[in-house]
């Protein structure tokens, strides 16, 4: 099955859960910015959670769907339509042959994920289908989608075919087991553009001036316009170490908040470098990375302190919620 790209959108890339196991060679993990949303989209169409889908940024593409396709859209609400009729988010939807999937514009959040039953079939590069634009590897020829591209889908699983059968008998031709998802699993971002994300103190937090430490927790930071998949630049009260430090480069992680000399922190995200040499003042809790990834440029971020134990407990709770969703889907299959 081939999808045809009629319009590419602002930045539409093939992403999965990333390229783990190659960071020692300097290869960024990459993958979906909001991994929870991609995983839910995949579950809804009967894919493995790690299957490749489309990450759609703010202004979506227009796609022509040539065969009967089961698809699901999660993450940002970018006003998706199927043949000009509104398409329900976080549902399994059957798209008839020849239909057009389009997006009206951002209503909430920043990145939508489109999963197709069978996943997107592009070659694995270093164990992943994720597009890493800077090195031009993975995804569709290592780049974002462009008009006239064709995208091959994989063979739907037995589970996908059973979900397709459920959807076909439903009155609205769609199916939403996501309504069983609990509060720990935020399937859809809220419409607000001000978020509170939980974070741990980073290694160099103690070396910040007292005023900078206070500002980190009390003041809002704005996501700057030159933010991308590699990192969010935050603009707020300027932060400073009590004494400048020359640091030796070492590994960084998804959610590391670095402080370059200019005083504006940078949160490292999916396409982050594997190592860095700036002071690390905070580490965003993994459970809140999806929320941060859905904050668009211009959006406001506040940090709230959380302990390591609490961060890991929250993360585990969300993993259990995803597992429950998986089981819930199995139980709903007719």
């Amino acid at each position, binding site marked *: 099955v081939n999808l045809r790209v009629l319009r590419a959108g602002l930045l539409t890339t093939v992403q999965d859960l990333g390229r*783990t*196991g*190659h*960071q*020692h*060679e*300097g*290869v*960024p*993990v990459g993958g979906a910015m909001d991994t929870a949303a991609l995983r839910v989209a995949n579950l809804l169409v009967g894919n493995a959670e790690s299957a490749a889908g489309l990450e759609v940024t703010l202004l979506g593409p227009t796609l022509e769907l040539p065969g009967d396709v089961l698809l699901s859209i999660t993450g940002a609400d970018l006003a998706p339509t199927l043949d000009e009729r509104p398409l329900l988010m976080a549902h399994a939807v059957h798209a008839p042959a020849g239909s057009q999937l389009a997006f009206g514009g951002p209503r909430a959040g920043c990145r939508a994920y489109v999963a197709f039953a069978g996943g997107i079939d592009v070659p694995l*590069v*270093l164990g992943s289908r994720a597009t890493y634009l*800077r*090195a*031009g*590897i993975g995804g569709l020829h290592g780049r974002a989608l462009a008009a006239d591209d064709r995208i091959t889908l994989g063979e739907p699983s037995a589970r996908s075919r059973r979900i397709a059968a459920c959807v076909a008998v439903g009155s609205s031709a769609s199916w939403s087991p996501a309504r069983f998802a609990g509060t720990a699993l935020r399937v859809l971002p809220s419409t607000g553009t001000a978020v509170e994300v939980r974070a*741990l103190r980073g*290694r160099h937090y103690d070396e910040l001036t007292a005023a900078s430490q206070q500002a980190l927790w009390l003041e809002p930071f704005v996501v700057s316009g030159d933010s991308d998949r590699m990192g969010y630049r935050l603009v707020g009260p300027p932060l400073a170490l009590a004494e400048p430090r020359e640091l*030796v*480069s*070492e*590994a*960084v*992680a*998804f*959610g*590391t908040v670095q402080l370059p000399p200019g005083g504006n922190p940078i949160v490292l995200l999916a396409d982050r*470098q*594997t*190592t860095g040499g700036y002071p*690390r003042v905070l*580490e*965003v*809790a*993994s459970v809140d990375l999806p929320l941060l990834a859905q904050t668009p440029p211009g959006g406001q971020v506040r940090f709230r302190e959380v302990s*390591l*134990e609490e*961060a*890991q407990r929250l*993360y*585990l709770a969300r*993993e259990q919620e995803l597992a429950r969703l998986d089981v819930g889907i199995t139980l709903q299959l007719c």
Partner: protein
Amino acid sequence: MSPDFVRIEPLGDAAILVRLGSDIDEATNRRVRAACARLERRRLAAVSDVVAAFTTVAVHYDPARGTFDQVARELSTALDQLDQEPLPATRTLTIPVHYGGGFGPDLEWVAAHARLTPEEVVRRHVAGEYLVHMIGFAPGFPYLGGLDASLVCPRRETPRTHVPTGSVGIGGSQTGIYPIESPGGWQLIGRTDVVLFDPAREPPSLLAPGDRVRFVEVQA
């Protein structure tokens, strides 16, 4: 620093930094490589990536498969008696470089800064044998130690937005090679045709920590 120095600290809620020394030197590099070799042999179930740096090894793990306390305890057991760990074989590679001109737009600047002629800068750069301390910054990018002290120079005040693939640069007391086109702030003195990163190759990175590098000048 004591040879059995191992300090374990969290890096966020899904990674751990193992600190094996405080200075950038060959002894610390050997301990970093020993820790990586050990963790390659004794793989911990929750761990996805083991990343060597100058003085640390980072261990990325899935907190759903092990808490910090659990993984930290497993790590300190696994990293016991590190000085007994046999180190994997390393290689010495020779990298041909076109120095100066369009290939090394900052060679004249580096020469002026060092109060040397460009020819002398090249002579000193090819005279060295460099140790790969770590791979980072970009896929396959080697941080090379062993730069002649007279060639140490500051990074550019304004980093370039596009540094061409294969560019050989100097940043502080380090020298390195850009494997892919990327932004970069190092002073560029030459360029090589050697492919440092190729995802179709196994392993994709030409160099690994512990390898040695020599440069030779390609005559135009």
